[in-house]
């Protein structure tokens, strides 16, 4: 076991990790942050997405040790318990949530997209979501949610 300091959702955690533990494993099994899901374990579905220094990446394919010194945000760090983030509100409004299992990953990808580009075209939205698989919604309402979120965020500014 090795010492590892991780910064997650603005909080510092000092942990002992095994060298081959993935970030997903640490989030769910060690820290109890179960909002990030495992859908495939091989970087193919996007359910495990988190933000690392602002980029949306699959936590199932990241060694926890590699994440020292990086700013990690999980779904638990989006919005707060009393005030949901505009993206979260948008997902509810648009009817973009069905079984909800892909939802945290979708929200993370949406945040990464909108943080980099507050006015994405339909094509850019589809590309930004293209590594998140969804089996329930057919993606349409999720794309709607991204548009609604962009409008909300612009209004707040």
């Amino acid at each position, binding site marked *: 076991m090795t010492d590892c300091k991780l910064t997650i959702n603005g909080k510092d955690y000092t942990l002992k990790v095994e060298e081959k533990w993935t970030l997903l494993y640490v989030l769910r099994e060690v820290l109890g942050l179960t909002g*990030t899901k495992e859908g495939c374990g091989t970087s193919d579905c996007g359910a495990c997405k988190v933000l690392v220094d602002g980029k949306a990446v699959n936590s199932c394919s990241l060694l926890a040790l590699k994440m020292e010194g990086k700013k990690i945000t999980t779904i638990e760090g989006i919005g707060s318990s009393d005030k949901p983030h505009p993206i979260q509100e948008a997902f509810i409004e648009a009817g973009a949530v069905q079984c909800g299992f892909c939802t945290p990953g979708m929200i993370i990808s949406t945040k990464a997209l909108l943080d980099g580009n507050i006015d994405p075209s339909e094509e850019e939205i589809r590309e930004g979501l293209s590594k998140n698989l969804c089996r329930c919604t057919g993606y349409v309402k999720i794309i709607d949610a991204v548009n609604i979120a962009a409008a909300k965020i612009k209004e707040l500014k």
Partner: protein
Amino acid sequence: MSLFEHNNNKYKVIGKDIKRIDALEKVKGTALYAADLYMDGMLYGGNVRIKEYPAKVTKIDTSLAKAIPGVVEIITCFDSRAKKHSWADYCYMTDEVKFCGDVVAIIAAESKKVLDQAIKSIKVEYELQKGVYTVEDALKEDAPIIREKGVGLVDGLPSREKKGNIFIDSYYPVRKGDVVEGFKNCDVIIEREYNVPFIDQAYIETEACLVYCDPKDGSITGESSAQNPFFTRRYLAEASGNTMSESRLIQRTLGGSFGGKEEGVGVQIGRAAILHKATGRPIKMVNSREESLMDSSKRHPFNFKYKIGATKEGKVLALEATLIDNCGAYNNQTQFMNWRSSVHSAGVYEIPNVKTDTFGVFTNNVHGGAMRGYSSPQVIFAQEQLMNELAKELGMDNVELRRKNIIRQNSRTATNQLITEEVILEEMMDELLNRSNYYNKKNEYEEFNKNSKSFKKGISLVTCFRGAGLGAEGIDANGAFVQATEDGSVIISTGLAENGQGLQTAFAQIAAEPLGITIDKIHFHSVDTHAIADSGMTVASRGTTMGAQSMKKAAERLALIIKEHVAKKFCTTVDKIDCKDNYYYVVDENFPSNYSNEKKVAFKDICNERMWGGEQLAVYEWFKPELNDYNHHTGQGKAFPTYTYNVCIAEVEVDINIGSVNVTKVTSGLDCGTVINPNTVRGQMFGGIVMGLGYAITEEIELNKGRILNDNFDSYILPTSMDIPEMDLVLFESITKEGTFGAKSVGEPSTEAVGAAIAGAVSHALNKNVDHLPCSLESILKYMD
């Protein structure tokens, strides 16, 4: 016109775009799925499997695994504590491995990492046996017999007189009229064959459960990603040796199921229960994606052989067919599912003479089970390509051929059921033809194709119907509990389960409507088998149409109790009381709002009064539909109480140089009966279209001697957000006395026609008969040869 009107005022809450009541916890990431559960002292459970099938296990060496620190228990198939067959045909553990999902040993360990290590350290010795992997081989005279109960063919039909690989309980004949006579009167007769593969439900959440015990009384609890909590409870009780009343199943937030989380979840919870009994500690089991693909049920592959005949005017007179599906090595679904296939085996057409035989065959493969549609996507695909081929042969327009033969009010179906309710199918066809600009596009595409060398465009319309609910397949009975509390908030419980489809919200609307309260006052209590009676499975798209009938009854009865209370209060009669927006009032037309403030009282105040007054505030109701009069030997009779009608138009562009199919647009029309929640219906339709797209173009379980070659999402190809077409949804309503508030099925109808429509469009583009799915890169190139 039967088009659904948004924001109509027929009902207070029904038909409104109510936001999903379970969405907030999901966007926050706080919704708990079974894999998110943790408990002190919990152990992780896992499975040991072999990689060749079928095989007889001779020896299992656990010494290395036992020596790993953190390994708490290992139970092999030879252990006295092991249980073999479950009540539903599948095995918890076995030494006679018949397919890739069979488990030969189970392990409990202190952590996931130790568990993985232990699984790898188990050494299994086995003798490979001769297997049978295709239906064709399984039906040969000299084929090895996979199951003791399998039967063979006599004169081409399944018969108990002979041993073989046919699952006799899944054999359903349909005999209507006399096909021999029928064919004699036909001017045109064609014969065609179609094939479709195994595909997976591919829900993003894999199967997971947590099993633990109540030390007080020894009752066992399982929290699980179960689609059918009561069925899952049966596995829990059986494997643990507890009675049903001492086995409790709590359904956790379900990450999609589409029919797949039945037997896979059941055997999983059984294995967890066995480990729990052996260790005395809570056991958590979570399937990896690879395990989920191996162990869970699949959509059945089918081989269809058709003979169909019509007059030169296009009236279909006779249809003869065999529909043979691949059951896999074990099966507990085909015997129900094939009944549905047989009922729909002549499509949504009125054909006077029908002779079809549907049966399933065992092979050493993954098993066919339930997947959204439950045989309909397969049957509709084949049927609709067949109709297009017939139209071609007749020199007739595809749509006109359908118009001449579709079921209407007072038609008789293939099972000779008289359709007494209104059938809006033709109206739906016309609306969709108009909206999609079908004929202009068809001509435009045909013109384009003449001159284009690399790209071909196509458009196709398909029609179908679906019996709503379980019909004569089973008893569509269900129970519900509605409990008002002293502050006017209401708890509702049902035996039907939220799969992600929006059941909670729909049921809340159905309860809110008669009670006159707003949705935010309702709390939906997820299925807990201790809290509500077995209401059957959440399948067959019966959730709202049939499954909510008891909820409606219970809410109506409670509303009546409240109205009686209010009537007494204002010294009037019950028929003068109405309710809305959390208030009950005496109706008085003299006021613009229909009531005066003196004669109005808040629902919460009545509840409070009744609670302190010791008056009833909760109601339990049971609903059982009329029994259908159906003869399973001839396949004749009333099969379903009502039917959902469905029209789908797909447009494609095919690159014939590389074989890629780009689905450019899908126009989907659904007869919903009554739309309970337009938002969730549309969600189902969008999702259903994309699922149908996967079926048509990219999805296929690739098997080699029973081994799945594409066992994760890099090679089992699901559509991404970049692959979706333009989608135009058209919701229709129609009159039916069946169904809760007249609601018909939506879950499966929203996907079952899409694959057929896309295949039809590809067929139009290439001017070839598309005779199998998927329309992969390789298939397209082969068609062009």
